């Protein structure tokens, strides 16, 4: 059964977009932001969020650092790199192409 809240491969795009608006978020905050900004429609799968973050870090789009939250706990926060910003615009335009194409199909049929 199809899940309406599944991101269908747009997770990278959302993560990059959110980090470009608000740099320095940690994993949970990114997840919450996706949920919040999409008006509770979209929900990042918690199981695939971290591998995705690590993959993007590996690709050089994100930079991670540890910051202290309080005495006992520290957080791993992510920022966009210049390369990540470039990637965001590519992904964004690709998304727009795809969605407008899909819309065109929906209109004509």
């Amino acid at each position: 059964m199809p899940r309406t809240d599944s991101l269908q491969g747009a997770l990278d795009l959302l993560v990059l977009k959110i980090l470009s608006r608000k740099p320095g978020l940690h994993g949970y905050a990114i997840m919450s932001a996706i949920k919040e900004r999409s008006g509770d429609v979209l929900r990042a799968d918690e199981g695939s969020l971290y591998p995705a973050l690590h993959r993007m870090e590996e690709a050089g789009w994100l930079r991670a650092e540890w910051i202290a939250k309080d005495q006992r706990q520290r957080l791993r926060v992510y920022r966009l790199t210049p390369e990540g910003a470039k990637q965001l615009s590519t992904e964004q335009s690709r998304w727009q192409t795809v969605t407008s194409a899909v819309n065109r199909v929906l209109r004509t049929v």
Partner: protein
Amino acid sequence: MSLWSRAINLFRGERVSREIEEELATHVTEGIAEGRDASEIRKALGPALQIREESRDLRIIPWLDSLRADLVFGCRQLVKRRVTSTASILSLALAIGSCTAAFRLIDAMLLRPLPVKNPEHLYDLTRHLIGFDGKPASYDLWAYPAFRRMRDAVKDQAELIAISSTLTVELTYRSDQEMEKANLDYVSGGMFDSFGLRPVAGRLLSASDDLMPGAHPYAVLSHDYWARRFGKDPNVVGRTLRTDDTVYQIVGVVQAPFTGTSPGTMTDVFLPAMMSGKTQRDDAAWMRTIARVKPGIAIAPLQAKLNAISHAFEEERAKHFVGMSKIQTARFLAETVILEPAAAGASNLQGDYRRSLLSLGVLVVLVLLIACANVANLMTAQASARAREMALRVSIGAGRARLVQLVLVESACLALLASALGGLFAWWAAPLVVRLISSPGKPVQLLLPADWRVFAFGLLLTVAVILLFGLAPALRASGVKPAGALKGCADPHARPRLIHGLIAVQVAFSFLILFVAGLFVATFDRLSNRPMGFSSDRLLVLNVVLSRPQQAVVWDDVADRLRGVPGVEKVAIAGWAVFTANSMNNFISLHGEPPGPVLAYFLSVSPGWRETMRLKLIAGRDFRPDETTPGAALVNETFAREYFNGENPVGKAVLRGGPAAPFWIVGLVADAPYRSIREPILPVAYVPFRQVDSAGAPGSYGHASFIIRTTGANPLALAQTMRLEVARARSDFRVSSIDTQEELNRAQTLRERLLAMLAIFFGCVALLLATIGLYGVLDYAVLQRRREIGIRLAIGASGGRIVRLVTVGVFSMVAIGAIAGLALGFWSIRYVEALLYQVKATDVSMLALPSLILFAAAFLAAVPPAIRAVRIDPVAMLRAE
């Protein structure tokens, strides 16, 4: 993340895992803070281990990570089995080290290209002919006029360069009293240009420095000599040196590492060929001709052209020969010029040692193969012992490639450690061998740099070794069938096949090495025990040079002075000492007939020389003091046999060469070697040191040797006294070197001694390895079959039966190996035959000895496991299962 940081993370694997763990933990905490349930968040996150692995693989290079893990595991395995690992590493290190050392020598002597521009275009002009003794021979020395003619004729196709064979001369930078030795080459002026060499100080010789005989007294030093003798003093340019009564001006130093074109000797001083004094003589062959063939020129037509020119030259020369028979002249002219590739230079030492070095190379490769077989056997036995571990790994999902990697990495650990040790061994051993083949009179100088060639060879060797001994056990280990192995009932008959095959190979190679070692040892033994005819005991040889030649009477005066020194028993004078490679020969004619085809050899000696040498007089008498050359002669038995059919020649007359004054034979002496211990005895005529020319005027000598029999046991104790006494007797007499006859004799068998020594060494190593291997395999077989043996003993099998059961398979392998080794030995004979002396490979003793030694070793290796097998307690064994 860069490859580099991923590689770095490899060594912080723990930390990477911990960080991922921590990040996930904060995720859960954040969720709880929002009021979610902890277990629900964990469920949503999915299996933590999977995320961790997935993320970890992103941050670390997975294959490198597994390699690291295998490396750590492999090292642990090696440390765990300390004894077998040490034995494996040491045997491999010895074998790898020997191979690398052999490569360094072979490379330096035969393979390494000369440090000149395009060495691959260089060829050595060599003449192949049938010698006076009727055997094929080749030589590469030329007369200068022939060179000049060839150079001019082919100048469009090739540049021809004349390079004298290296001379060790006496020269001085100051006064005559400070003479020193140096290696000297006369070279064509154009050589440096043609080789693309540059000066590091001053200038080099050019073609214009080599035009007129005697007109260009300029010298160039090699960089090595410049550094060694002058400490790289730039002011050396412009200084003068004197040798052979000519003063040369040093004009420059040639760049390193060029030290001439003959590997084995390093040239110190280069002089223009035109200064040699022999450039006009067409009967003195004294220089090599190196051709630099221009690009795109075919070799065959060039060779034919050179052949035609050389032929015309010799034909013209033969017209003026006196007293040579038609057959000899035809033989002399039937020579062909061959262009032999000379990228690695050309030297006599290459010819002397090519076959020896290659034989040794083959021996060390065999030792390496034996060592590899040994280690492979140990590892295979261990692989079976680890079958359960491997089966477990397969069961939990390890792929075949992963298991091969695991075992190969372990092998690599072993091989790398062995290579490091072997490298040290080679670093020490190669110069040692060079020292062993050097003699005081004939030092061998080889550059043995540890450069990329040696390193690349070592690396290739290591990889080859890893594959040789590691691949079979690795494949075997990875091919494990988990179901059977975990139950512990693997098929016992499938296993020993590889192990037994390796045993046969080891035995075959060991047999071959022992067989060849036996041949070399027998050769050395026969040569060193060859009857000499004279006594070398307490014999001192003083080689003396004069600044200006003097008549024999003057030499006699000095000999008289030496006779007065305490500790001297007898003193005589000879043109040169026995075994100094000097020789003088000519044809002999009898009764005024044309000369015969057999060459006779001559040595001028003073009266009393025969007595000093203790050479037996068979008939007639020694020289009288007033007898001269020509006039009187002592001849040896071979001479009498050759020219007088063995009749007593005393009182007969012979002529040397063409028409000249006769020699009357006054005495017959015992046979003795002349210039080489390997040759059959030559027909020799000893003639008086005093000589007169055809007009009756006395001749002079610029150099000769005093042969001194001392009373003390160590003749060298008198060396310094004699040196001073000679200088005191006459200021123009100078002792250039002092030898003992014993040393000269020893120098004759240097090559054989080296071959025998190294072959024995490798034979022992091979035997030791084969014995250890055999023992290991038998021991393992007993261990594997202990249950079966226990049952057999329990139902009444005798000890003899058990021993036979355990050893029969292995012993049949030893027999098969020995037979294969025998076949290999017979096949290899043709390659080592040239190195042997009066040794027949088919001698029963030559074949029996290695077989006996091998079977004795096999027996020795079988005793402990056999005892263990018989002592198995059936009750305890069956209960233990």
